[in-house]
């Protein structure tokens, strides 16, 4: 059967995972059960998004070969047969999801002679590097700013940090990128303007991408640390002779709970923001391909990238859910 991979991935896998989760539930291991159940939803989300995107593509009239100059009917028919566009819609969709199950999104329509998976594989490392850099700034700056603000709660430092946080949160990442580019890359020229040739070229784009999320993290951490410090254990620790530093570290551990819960949302936001940041800094990632493909009517590439982005966002959400019980055992099995 040709559609076996699709059936296995989108029907068999979720069913299997649901069944496993049932079994775990009966054994009383709620944590494993909820993990499995969430994992079972992943292929279904991919399927839903792919289906939706497929519908959008085919709901908009016009085909990928509608140029200014109409093609000869024979050429057109040959092209459509080559890319499988002459079949009925449900059949095309079945073929497409069958390909997705095998990580094969078909040939790209605009980049002739390249498969969509090649284009994705070529752009993915740069995009991932940018995303990881942004996550790094988000956690490093957000955690430290939040803890410092909480440690000096009510003081001048706290007020300045709060002001900076409010300001950065209101700035869209592309405005932030300009504000960083003008002094560092254009006036003083200490950092590269564009490209991704060296690690120093990563600093500005990842900073521009990560800062708004760092502001949000700083807010969360500040509230959580203050909340933790107002509980009773810091008094006990102090009475036992531990210094303030140890208490702050203990409070920070508690503050990791809301930060972890925020990670999924942040990852989705970073994926979104990477589209503009990649364009501003001319990073050879997936963002440029995505926008170009939507404008070029490169159906297969756009479909593949929408599916990929959504899968990545869903995966990040799932991973954040997995991490949460490590920092907060109460959320186990929730």
């Amino acid at each position, binding site marked *: 059967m040709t559609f076996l991979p699709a059936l296995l991935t989108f029907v068999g896998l979720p069913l299997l995972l649901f069944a496993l989760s049932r079994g775990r539930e009966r054994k009383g291991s709620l944590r494993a059960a909820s993990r499995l159940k969430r994992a079972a939803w992943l292929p279904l989300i991919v399927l839903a998004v792919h289906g939706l995107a497929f519908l959008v593509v085919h709901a908009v*009239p016009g085909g990928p070969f509608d140029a200014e100059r109409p093609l000869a009917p024979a050429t057109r028919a040959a092209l459509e047969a080559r890319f499988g566009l002459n079949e009925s819609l449900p059949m095309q969709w079945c073929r497409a999801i069958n390909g997705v199950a095998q990580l094969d999104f078909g040939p790209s329509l605009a980049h002739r002679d390249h498969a969509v998976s090649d284009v994705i594989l070529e752009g993915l490392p740069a995009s991932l590097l940018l995303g990881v850099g942004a996550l790094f700034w988000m956690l490093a700056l957000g955690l430290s700013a939040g803890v410092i603000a909480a440690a000096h709660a009510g003081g001048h430092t706290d007020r300045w940090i709060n002001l900076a946080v409010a300001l950065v949160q209101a700035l869209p990442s592309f405005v932030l990128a300009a504000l960083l580019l003008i002094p560092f890359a254009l006036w003083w020229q200490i950092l590269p303007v564009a490209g991704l040739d060296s690690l120093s070229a990563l600093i500005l784009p990842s900073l521009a991408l990560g800062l708004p999320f760092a502001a949000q993290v700083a807010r969360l951490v500040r509230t959580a640390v203050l909340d933790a410090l107002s509980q009773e254990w810091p008094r006990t620790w102090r009475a036992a002779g531990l210094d303030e530093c140890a208490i702050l570290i203990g409070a920070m551990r508690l503050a990791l709970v809301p930060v972890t819960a925020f990670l999924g949302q942040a990852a989705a936001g970073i994926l979104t923001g990477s589209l503009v940041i990649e364009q501003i800094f001319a990073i050879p990632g997936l963002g440029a391909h995505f*926008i170009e493909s939507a404008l070029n009517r490169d159906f297969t590439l756009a479909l593949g990238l929408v599916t990929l982005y959504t899968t990545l966002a869903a995966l990040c959400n799932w991973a954040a859910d997995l991490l949460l019980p490590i920092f907060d055992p109460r959320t186990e099995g929730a």
Partner: protein
Amino acid sequence: MKRSLYLCALLLLGTLSIPLLPLADPAAVHPELALAAPTLAPWWLPRSEPNSSQWNERAREALFGPRELAPLWGRDALGRCVLSRTLYGARASLLVAVVASLAALIIGVSVGASAGFFGGRLDSLLMRSTDIFGALPLIFMVIFAVGLLRTYRTAHPETVLNPNLALLGITAAVSWIPAARIVRADVLRLRQATFVEAARCMGTRDSSILRLHVIPNSMPVALTAWTLTVPRVLMLESFLSFLGLGMEAPDVSWGVLLRQGHEALTAVHLSWWLILAPALALTVTLLLLNHLGEQVRIHLAPRRGEAP
């Protein structure tokens, strides 16, 4: 609360009165003056003749005489006045933000109120679909859809499909979820209220109770949801315009200006004023709107059903 409300009203009034201000024509091209730096030297320039006798032109003439403000904030790559382009861009940006968020509010209130009021199977159906809708990173679908629409329009210029209207619809279609959740939580509370019970005892039909008693009473909460939606929609619009998927020429919005500013930003010719004007305008507006949303939320905190 009051102060930020006044500031927002001032912002809106200022935006509405832009056609009355003595600004240079935002579309007037001066290639010989391309990328002229900001200058304060001539404050006024004589007005090139008014191109129409519309009421705003006549009012402007009466107020300020036959002159216009010099391009105090420099000129762009085609020699157009950055100041007047930014101010005219405010009209488009804020119009989209206000109208699209109102449309989103209408969708959100209808979904949330009917889910909360009728409960049962309708509630679970509506709220589950809202959950699924909210879990997808819709921005990619939006970019995708807008891109496809645009290419369709370039291939078929005779179509009646207005791109800016499509932009409004699409931004509204993805921003209604918080409003629906907040309003539903409030309607769940209102449903138990004595006045709803009284209306029911008098034999009022469910739809009339919803229309006359429940929805008007959940308006404060809906207003909170709205103030939270406006900055988000503004951000979304400028994001799309920045990517070249939003407003189309000749309309300018802040996103379009930011894009042009970025294009003009090179080490050879550092024309910072091009990007700084829309960036400042957008940031100040977002700060103001965020602040207003926060204030309204705190003000209505006891009535707030659910944190957004």
